[in-house]
């Protein structure tokens, strides 16, 4: 079914959604911040 194939092709072209160094940096920074908050919470628990 050509219509479905075109839609699938269009969808697959969108992957990966974001691929850039800047995104990775921001993402890892958010990751680190959350892990830091978790660490502080565990310390508070102790």
């Amino acid at each position, binding site marked *: 079914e*050509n*219509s479905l*194939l*075109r*839609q*699938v*092709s*269009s*969808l*697959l*072209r*969108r*992957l990966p959604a974001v*691929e850039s160094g800047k995104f990775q940096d921001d993402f890892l920074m958010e990751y680190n911040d959350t892990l830091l908050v978790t660490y502080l919470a565990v310390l508070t628990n102790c």
Partner: protein
Amino acid sequence: MDMEQKQEELIDHFVKQASSLTGASLASLVSEATSHPSLFAFSEILSAPSLLQLEGTENSVYLDVLRLFAHGTWSDYKSNAGRLPQLVPDQALKLKQLTVLTLAETNKVLPYDQLMQQLDVANVRELEDFLINECMYAGIVRGKLDQLRKCFEVQFAAGRDPRPEQLGSMIETLSNWLVTSDNLLISIQEKMSWADKMSELNKKHKKEIEDKAEEVKKTYS
């Protein structure tokens, strides 16, 4: 999906027409289909038996034009201009729109220089006008024009007619995506079981400590 819904009726109409026409009369059909402002898919028309019969005949040039619009770009037309009939302005516009879709297939960030070269556009203003008026407003692409970095960031591009050789990579990508999703679901399931188990252990440990504390209090008192 919106694109496909808009084109569905048009495709049906042209396919029906193609089944009832033969030979040279298909020339006007091909011309009409390739000039239509809302049609960007030609595989269904291309697979009509009457059109396939044009192969090897004196009218095979119309079949080549349709194939060009189904899979080719503006550069392909320029390099084969001698063999193919002269395109009217509407057809040229259509082919340039399809060229943008083809370029968006390989890269998400399209530099202005590359676009200007591929589309035979003289300056940036003309290029941006083309991208905005003919591509974005037509709904075939969505994206951001970055004038500082002189590039067009494509967020969405409608799909062109797929070639048979592209199916393999599409199937592989879909399979990889499916495997990734399945693995992710399994990980989530595992984490949920782990969380439940840890919660149970925690509760048990807390109860043990509380019981011990009670015991010590009783012993002390």
